[in-house]
């Protein structure tokens, strides 16, 4: 029942925001970077549904364009973190021994830093740009993926079907790929959705701090940063990107919960 509600709210939210990002690839009402001195700081109207900013750029166009940038970055980040984390997690969890100890020690050290702080440090080294955000956030999120996947593998490798695979004469690599990895998919999927939300938030935070995607390209984070000076005179400037970030997080988290309930075998038994 609750799972249904999560799905009913989460899926349309994510679909709408994702659809907006897709549309922005092909079309936006105005050019997202087209300035117009005459139309500076205009309140929402029929021409500009969400108003204009301090350079007269259309906020709706920038929100849409920002969505595609944010989602692209978040998607790439999640892919990097999940791929790297799953690979390391499965390997250490299955092989155990010294590999496991050394990798997990490094992993725990990385986990001790707050993710955004770690990403911030990497961004300072790499310089701003989409590629470096993906690298920085991907690296920052990998340790938590490693932790979760390794835990899952540790419990799976004690199952008798993994032993049966050894008895059949299968190699370790084959056993990992055929019997352990597929049974990790459910928790990884759920983790990926929640990471996606975090990545959107972190990318916005980095951009807000001026370390993300540099202007004039639009992201929700740098729009929020730029709107700070006009908070009192032009509230719509901060309201629109702020709301978008909040709605994305809400939608992704609800979807993640729904997925978890759906993928949990104990739930699917009902």
């Amino acid at each position, binding site marked *: 029942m609750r799972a249904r509600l999560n799905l009913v709210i989460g899926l349309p939210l994510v679909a709408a925001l994702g659809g907006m990002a897709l549309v922005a690839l092909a079309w936006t009402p105005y050019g997202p970077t087209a300035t117009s001195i005459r139309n500076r700081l205009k309140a929402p109207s029929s021409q500009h549904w969400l108003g204009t900013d301090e350079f007269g750029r259309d906020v709706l166009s920038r929100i849409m364009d920002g969505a595609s940038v944010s989602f692209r970055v978040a998607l790439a980040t999640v892919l990097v973190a999940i791929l790297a984390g799953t690979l390391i997690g499965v390997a250490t969890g299955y092989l155990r021994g010294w590999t496991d100890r050394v990798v997990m020690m490094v992993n725990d050290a990385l986990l001790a830093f707050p993710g955004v702080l770690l990403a911030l440090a990497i961004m300072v080294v790499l310089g701003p740009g989409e590629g470096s955000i993906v690298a920085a956030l991907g690296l920052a999120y990998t340790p938590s993926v490693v932790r979760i996947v390794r835990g899952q593998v540790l419990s799976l490798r004690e*199952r*008798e*079907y993994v*032993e*049966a*695979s*050894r*008895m*059949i*004469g*299968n190699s370790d690599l084959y056993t990992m790929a*055929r*019997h352990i990895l*597929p*049974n990790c998919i459910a928790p990884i999927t759920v983790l990926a959705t929640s990471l996606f939300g975090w990545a959107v938030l972190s990318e916005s935070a980095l951009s807000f701090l001026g370390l993300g995607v540099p202007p004039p390209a639009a992201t929700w984070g740098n729009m929020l940063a730029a709107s700070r000076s006009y908070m009192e005179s032009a509230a719509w400037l901060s309201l629109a990107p702020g709301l978008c970030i909040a709605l994305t997080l809400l939608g992704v988290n609800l979807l993640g919960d729904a997925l978890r309930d759906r993928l949990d*075998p104990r739930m699917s*038994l009902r």
Partner: protein
Amino acid sequence: MRAPDPLLRVEGLSLATRSGLPIVEDLSFRVDRGAVLAIVGESGSGKTMAARAVIGLLPPGVVRRAGRILLEGAAISEQPEPALRALRGPGLGMVFQEPMVSLNPAMTIGAQMAEGLALHRRLERSAIRARCLDMLRRVGIGEPERCLSAYPHEFSGGMRQRIMLASVMLLEPKLLIADEPTTALDTLTQKDVLDLMVGLARDHGTAILLITHNLGLVARYAADTIVMEKGRLVEAGATRALLSAPREAYTKALVAALPRRTPHPPPAPRGAPMLTVRDFVVTHPGARSLFRRRVPKRAVDGVSLDVHPREIVAVVGGSGSGKTTLGRAILGLVPHEAGTLSFDGADPFATRAARRSFVLQAQMVFQDPYSSLDPRMRVEAIVREPLRHVPELTAGEAARRVEATLDDVGLRGFGRRYPHELSGGQRQRVAIARALVRRPRFVVADEPVSALDMTIQAQVLALFTALQDAYGFACLFISHDLAVVEAIADRIAVMQDGRVVETGHRDDIFDRPRHAYTRALLEAAPRLDLAPSTPVLKPSAA
């Protein structure tokens, strides 16, 4: 024999899921004061749900549709939850099936035992403690003082079930509901715990509702029995009459499913053994605790064993006797520390090539059919997987082999299913098919039927013997259940504390046991001896 006012009367009880699926239909029975009534049935027969309805602990999603439950003439089924709570403990006690999870791991034994007393009796703390100690002594706990401050994980399954029993009996309930109380225990412990339970109940005038699928236990402990199938009462009556002359077809099937000794020809003179184990030692590294490493435990301690071609050798022993470890070490799943192993006259672990060839000829059937199959693979993929390592088979031949093997185990047409769509017995058939699809010469079967119901057990055992006849593999059959072993083994090795204490032909072991431990095991095995002298416990008139 029947008292006019029984302790418990269940009238026309019907249970169903919220979606309307019937679980128990129109069940009526009575339990007299101090009597032992057994409810017998297979999984899914509704026996556990019926018992849970009595104590008012139905899981969410199951509701009582009709019927009344009367305890001493009062309809407890109509009482509100708070009144029921006051009744649980002093009125109704329950011992659960799984001793490993029915005690709270974060509480000391003392705290858990005291909980019930503090709730239902007005007693000083010292009085509570004294009663706990007294009861622990009664259930045979060695150092009761120490036990009170210990945590559940420090005890074995049998000990935990004793502790569970002690904490339930502390409140002297009028009715004790025991739901498969010994299914998770080995034969010897089973007898100890049940003897204790029945003895305690008799002393306190407690009646017992014993829920089990094991007819041997019923014959030994219950004066009256009801048989349930698919939520309905099939047959009821005095145990001895019911088991010696069952009227209904289902009861007859249950009685027939009990493993029996089939006449075996005496072992033909054989050539050299196929597998030879000499002075095998396997050591479990001590569990690491926070500050020190515990002493390593010798699980297998100097075992020697021969297995001839086409022979079934059973290894029998209680839990912790090292029998499972022995089987796993022979297959190389755990390393052995000392001793020699030879297969066809050569050490199978000497070289990589030898190990490989051994793995291809030896297979294992695991105990738990619920964890031995990959949940994300279809049955045919599971059975086909071992053929990856038989390169001379073409894809078409492999497919035909898989089909033929599924046919062999009676699962024709099940290839497209996933494990969760199969019952426990069907899953174990898949596991057997996977082990046999490569036509191995040697199979280790680790308690392959102990997780199954009696009738299913009989079917799987019959299948296993038929396949062994057809394909002629040799087998090391590991079990704690002598009844199962009696039905299929050629020779038996009895293990205790990591050593083989007695080896012999099956009939010799059963008819002329030499070692005391073998005799104790035989004595403890629940059997359906229906001779007039059978000591069926009479209910004491209360």
